């Protein structure tokens, strides 16, 4: 379709891939290097996963069972997330075609803090979970959405939305956990969104997204004149094609993420994590690690957390419920499709730090 042969391919999903080179001449070699690195990483991961099989000498049938378990878990995460990613992509495609850029300009606040707060509650209007929110945010950035609003939306929407509120309520009832989850998710998202308002789009967004973002900001006003109004059916077709492009683009990160999460589950057994500790501090760290590794969809993680509510501190359960929807293995890989690597690191670290502080504070001041 619309091919721009001068642009390098946006296919760097491997965390170990080298940073983009400056000269166009090195593109073939860079791609080759990227392939080799990805393969090497994959091989290393496989060796790591099945190391104990080789050492224990339990033989091929056992190895086969382990592989089957790995495939079942990664397909489980994948199959469970696909509908939500597709829904997010379709919303993104509809936004691309039907939402006018000037609307964002007109209705959303410009200042950083009010912007972040609006972003924090936008999930109530767009009820998306952590897979669906990523393509929507990317599209909104391409429509010129300010950074802080998008970041706050990205982090808060998986919790501050009617579906997740309902599932949290049905698991924990009206109480400290329910209120704490929503309030702290909102607060942390707003704080991180506000911090990101200090950065420029060039520092945060991928070049392709950033370019569209800049174009949208500057082209807002002459955009209205010459937009041809195609027939409605054709515009729907167009938005679905854009949705398909978005889906195929993001699904690569989802696939890599679900396989990584499944591998991590084999490497870091749940039982080992849970055996580590019960203290007011350690329990919070353990539950955060668990949330990161499990990569469970935010619409149902409340039911999962309930199982730990008896044995783990309330602060740590809250940290699981606040941190997990914001950041986990699969969503942080999906962030790589929108943000620069450094920004992704901040997007993982800041919520981790803030929800850790929250959990520890809760344990020490409000009770276990």
């Amino acid at each position, binding site marked *: *379709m*619309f*091919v*721009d*042969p001068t642009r390098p*391919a*946006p*296919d760097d999903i491997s965390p170990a891939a080298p940073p983009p080179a400056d000269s166009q001449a090195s593109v073939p070699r860079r791609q080759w290097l990227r*392939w080799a690195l*990805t393969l090497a990483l994959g091989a290393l991961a496989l060796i790591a996963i099945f190391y104990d099989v080789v050492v224990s000498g339990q033989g091929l049938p056992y190895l086969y*069972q382990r592989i*089957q*378990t790995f495939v*079942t*878990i*990664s*397909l*489980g*995460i994948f*199959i*469970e997330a*696909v*509908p939500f990613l*597709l829904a997010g992509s*379709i919303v993104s495609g509809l936004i691309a075609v039907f939402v006018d*850029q000037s609307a964002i300009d007109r209705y959303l606040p410009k200042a950083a803090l009010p912007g972040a707060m609006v972003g924090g509650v936008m999930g109530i209007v767009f009820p998306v979970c952590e897979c669906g929110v990523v393509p929507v945010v990317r*599209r909104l950035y*391409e429509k010129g959405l300010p950074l802080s609003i998008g970041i706050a939306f990205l982090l808060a929407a998986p919790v501050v939305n009617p579906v997740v509120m309902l599932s949290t309520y049905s698991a924990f009832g009206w109480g400290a956990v329910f209120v704490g989850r929503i309030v702290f998710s909102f607060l942390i998202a707003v704080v991180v969104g506000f911090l990101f308002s200090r950065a420029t789009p060039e520092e945060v967004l991928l070049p392709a*997204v950033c*370019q569209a973002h800049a174009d*949208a900001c500057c082209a807002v006003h002459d955009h209205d004149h010459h937009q*041809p109004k*195609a027939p409605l059916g*054709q515009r729907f077709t167009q938005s*679905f*094609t*854009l*949705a*398909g*492009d978005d*889906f*195929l*683009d993001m699904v*690569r990160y989802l696939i890599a993420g679900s*396989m990584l999460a499944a591998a991590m*589950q084999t490497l870091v*057994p*749940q*039982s080992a994590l*849970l055996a580590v500790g019960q203290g007011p501090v350690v329990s919070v760290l353990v539950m955060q690690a668990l949330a990161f590794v*499990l990569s*469970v*969809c935010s619409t149902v*993680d409340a*039911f*999962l957390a*309930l199982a730990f*509510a*008896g*044995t783990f501190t309330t602060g740590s359960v809250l940290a699981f419920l606040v941190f997990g929807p914001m950041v986990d293995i699969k969503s942080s890989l999906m962030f790589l499709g929108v943000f620069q690597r450094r920004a992704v690191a901040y997007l993982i670290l800041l919520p981790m730090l803030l929800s850790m502080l929250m959990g520890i504070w809760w344990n020490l001041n409000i009770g276990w």
Partner: protein
Amino acid sequence: MNLINRPKFQNAVKALILLGLALFLYTRLADGTLFFYINQRFMIYTVLAIVGLVLVAISYRPVGRQHEPNAHDLDHEHVHAHDAAEPHTHHRLTWAGLALVVLPVVLGVLIPPRPLGAAAMENREINIASQPRNVLPAAVRAAAQKSSLDRNLLDWLHAFSASPNAAEAFAGEPVDVVGFVYHDERLDESQFMVNRFIVSCCVADANVVTMVVRWPDGATLENDAWVRVEGILQPGVFDGASLPILSAQRVTPVAMPDQPYLYP
């Protein structure tokens, strides 16, 4: 231009991938193996995803022939799109991207579907009645209302969790449960575990509910074999904690249930 960069090839490949994914999900749905991966309540989303994938795939059909009269409009829009609005939203698939996108389907086809079993147990927390556990009060009530013989392994865990001293309180109750066999290292020859995985969301969050079974021929049962165990509960000790142990009167091999997991 390279084959992969040709617009027509790109569109055809994208449509085929989307259709292939829809077909893959449909086959898993049709033969019931979808329940090896996700909680039953998510089935509706998978159905919607199949419909959505097909619709999106159809949108890639060549527009040239069907919209001949509008060719000028399209051209205009095309140029416009490149000019100002969204020059970078049209994502190109590379060979590497293509390989990654088809990977789940390839893995799913090459490796026959199989629910989590004994091989996955070493990695997980095992829920035995000896541990306190918070569960939905409604689930405890529901479990309490069922008669003993109707309770599955999860119902029993719920019932145990509501009692301060389950080992004594449930002694003598009759049990009839289905699960797969697992031989834990901490058990002796005449014991085995009967287990079900419980899945809240998808298999990534699975953990196990377990009952320790006392059965003289326990060692003859293979890991992962599905059995129906009938017997009565007796106070016992496992790993230093007291808990109800199922003293089996009859152990019969059964086929794997249609839904191998239990849903909380």
